[in-house]
C-alpha cells in the first residue's frame, strides 16, 4: 500500500456553526448517502441502467462546497459522478431519481441518464460523462458573470461557479488550460478536485508527476489549498474563503479535497485493485459519522435530532423512488424533441 499523504489539520473549534447550519449540513450529507445506497439497490433490481457512479464517502465535499455557495443562484458543474452534486444544488430527489429511471419527469427528461443530470433552474450546468469537458463549460459560465458585470454593467452579476472533478482529470489538458484562463482573467470560479486516490484502476501516484494537486495552482499564480475532504467543516471553511474571494472579483481558487470513494468506480466495477487496509482506513473516517460525533459533542444536536433527520431523508428517498416508478416514460413520438432550440 502506498503511504498515505498526511491530511491537513483543521481546528474544528474555529468553525462557527449554528445548530441550524449544522443540521442542514448533516441532512444534506445524509441525503447524499441514502440516495446513493438506494441507487445501488435499484440498479441491482434492474430499475436503472448503464454506468452508475456513486458518491459514497465523498459527501463532505459536495455539502461543504455547495452549501457554502448560494445554491440556485451560483453555478455548479459536475462530472459523471453527479447525483449528489445535483442534490446539494437543490435538484429535487424525485427528479434525480426519475432521471436515473429514464422517465419523462427526470431532471433531463429521461434523455440524459445518470451521467447527464442538468437543471437550468438550479443552475446545475450538468453532469459531463467525458472527463475534463465540464471544466471549460464551468469556466465559460464564470466568464459570463464577469462579462455581465463589466460589459453589461449588471451590478447583480456576482455569481460564483464551482467546477467539480477528480484527481485523474487533473492530468487532462482542459484542467491546465482553464486554470490558466481563469487566473489570467480573474474569473469567479472555484476548481474543486475530489482526490479520491483512484481513477478507475489507476492509482493517482502512478498517473501524475506531482501528486499534490493543490500545488499545481501556484504556477498560475492562483491560490491552491488542500483540505481534509472527509471533514465537512474543513471543506466548508476553505470553500467559504474561496467563494468570498471569487465574489469579490479576486479570482479563482484551486481546492484539493483529500477523500475516498467507499464503493467501486461504478456499480459495474469489481473493485479488485484497492487494498482492504486502504479501504478500511478510509471507511473509519466516514465524514457523516465524524460530523455526527461533532454535532453531539458540541451539543448542537441530540441523538434524536439526528435520528429524526435520517428518518425524514429515508422517506424523501422512498418518495423519490415511488415518484420515479409511477412517472411516465418519454413518448416515442418525442424522439427528436430537444435536438434543436426550437423544441421547447
Amino acid at each position, binding site marked *: 500500500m502506498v503511504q498515505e499523504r498526511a491530511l491537513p489539520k483543521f481546528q474544528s473549534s474555529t468553525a462557527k456553526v449554528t445548530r441550524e447550519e449544522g443540521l442542514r449540513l448533516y441532512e444534506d450529507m445524509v441525503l447524499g448517502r441514502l440516495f446513493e445506497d438506494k441507487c445501488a439497490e435499484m440498479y441491482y433490481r434492474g430499475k436503472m441502467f448503464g454506468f452508475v457512479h456513486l458518491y459514497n464517502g465523498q459527501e463532505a465535499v459536495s455539502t461543504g462546497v455547495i452549501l457554502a455557495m448560494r445554491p440556485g443562484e451560483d*453555478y455548479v*458543474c459536475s462530472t459523471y459522478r453527479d447525483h449528489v452534486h445535483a442534490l446539494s444544488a437543490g435538484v429535487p430527489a424525485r427528479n434525480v431519481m426519475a432521471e436515473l429511471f429514464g422517465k419523462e419527469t*427526470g*431532471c*433531463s*427528461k*429521461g*434523455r*440524459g441518464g445518470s451521467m*447527464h443530470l*442538468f*437543471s*437550468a433552474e438550479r443552475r446545475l*450546468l*450538468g453532469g*459531463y460523462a*467525458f472527463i475534463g*469537458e465540464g*471544466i*471549460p*463549460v*464551468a*469556466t*465559460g*459560465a*464564470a*466568464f*459570463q*458573470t*464577469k*462579462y*455581465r458585470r*463589466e*460589459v*453589461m454593467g449588471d451590478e447583480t452579476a456576482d455569481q460564483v461557479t464551482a467546477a467539480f472533478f477528480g484527481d485523474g482529470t487533473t492530468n487532462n*489538458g*482542459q484542467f491546465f*488550460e*482553464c486554470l*490558466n*484562463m481563469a487566473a*489570467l482573467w480573474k474569473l469567479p470560479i472555484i476548481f474543486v478536485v475530489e482526490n479520491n486516490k483512484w481513477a478507475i484502476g489507476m492509482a493517482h501516484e502512478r498517473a501524475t508527476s506531482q501528486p499534490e494537486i493543490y500545488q499545481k495552482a501556484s504556477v498560475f499564480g492562483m491560490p491552491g489549498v488542500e483540505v481534509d475532504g472527509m471533514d465537512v467543516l474543513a471543506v466548508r471553511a476553505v470553500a467559504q474563503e474561496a467563494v468570498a474571494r471569487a465574489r469579490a472579483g479576486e479570482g479563482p481558487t484551486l481546492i484539493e479535497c483529500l477523500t475516498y470513494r467507499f464503493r467501486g468506480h461504478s456499480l459495474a466495477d469489481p473493485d479488485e485493485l484497492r487494498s482492504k487496509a486502504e479501504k478500511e482506513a478510509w471507511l473509519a473516517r466516514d465524514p457523516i459519522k465524524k460530523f455526527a460525533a461533532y454535532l453531539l459533542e458540541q451539543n448542537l444536536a441530540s441523538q434524536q435530532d439526528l435520528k429524526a433527520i435520517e428518518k425524514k431523508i429515508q422517506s424523501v428517498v422512498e418518495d423519490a423512488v415511488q415518484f420515479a416508478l409511477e412517472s411516465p416514460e418519454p413518448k416515442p413520438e418525442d424522439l427528436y*424533441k*430537444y*435536438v*434543436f*432550440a*426550437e*423544441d*421547447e
Partner: protein
Amino acid sequence: MAETLMFNALREAIDEEMAKDPTVLVMGEDVGHYGGSYKVTKDLYKKYGELRLLDTPIAENSFTGMAIGAAMTGLRPIIEGMNMGFLLLAFNQIANNAGMLRYTSGGNFKIPMVIRGPGGVGRQLGAEHSQRLEAYFQAVPGLKIVACSTPYNAKGLLKSAIRDDNPVLFFEHVLLYNLKENLPEGEYYLPLDKAEVVRKGNDVTILTYSRMRHHVMQAVKTLEKEGIDPEVIDLISLKPLDFETIGASIRKTHKVIVVEECMRTGGIGAEIIASINDRLFDELDAPVIRLSSQDIPTPYNGTLENLTIVQPYQIVEAAKKMVALKV
C-alpha cells in the same frame, strides 16, 4: 450600394450584431488586437473592448467549451477558428457539448453560438491548413452547418447565424475573402436553411457550395457556349439540406451533378445522393454524378493540389456527358 470585400462583409455582420446586442461577443486566437487571421474582426476591439473581442490563449478545446458555458448562461458567443482545421482540437466540445448537450439535458439549456472561420483548400498551404472538415462534422446531431460563398450571402447568413438559438458551424473559405460585391445599404438577414438558386436552367441540376460554386460558374460559361442550360444551386445549408429547393430542381431537370470540395468518402455529396435515392429516385434519368476532392491529404505541390480538388473542366465534361444521355 458599396463595393465590399468578403472579409469586410463578415466584419459588418459582426459589427452590426454586436452594436445591437450586448450579449454578442467574439472569442478566439488573435481576434482582438490582431484583428483575426483574415482581418474579419479588425479594430472591433477598439469599439467594443477586450472582453467582447476576447483574445484567448491557444487552447481550442477549452475556449470552445468556455463559449458553450457562456452560451448556456445567456451570452451569444462567436468563436473564430484561426483556421477551421485547428478546431479538430475542439472536436469534443463541438460534438459532445455544442451539438448534443441541449438534447442530453432534456431541453434545459440552449447553446446559441457561432463557430466560424477560414477553411477549405487554399493555395499550397499544406495538408493541415487545407482541411475539408464539413464532412467530419455533418454527423453530429444538433449542429447547423452553413457554408457562405459570396460577400452578399456571407453577411446575411452570418447575421442570421448570430441570431439563431442553435450552435451554427459557419464555414468561410480562405480563397474567397477578397471577393468583391455591391452590398445593399442597411441590414439584411438571409435564411440559414435555404439553398440559393444561382442560375436557373433546365438541362441538369448542379449542386455545390462554398468555393466550388465559383468553379461551377466558370464551367457554366463554357457550357452556355455549347448550348447547355444548367441549373446551379448553392446548398448554403449543409445541414439540414434544403430538399425543397433541391427537389424542385430535380423534378425539372431529372439529372444531378454534385460538386464538392470535401473528400469523396462519407462526404456531403454522399449524403445528398443517399437522400436523393430515398426521396427522388423515380425522378432521376441517370445516376447522380459526384465530383469530389480526392481521398488524400491535400498535397503541397501545386500540380498535385490542383489534381486533388475539382476543376472547372471536369465539371464541363460531366455536364456534357450527363446532358448527352438520351433517356
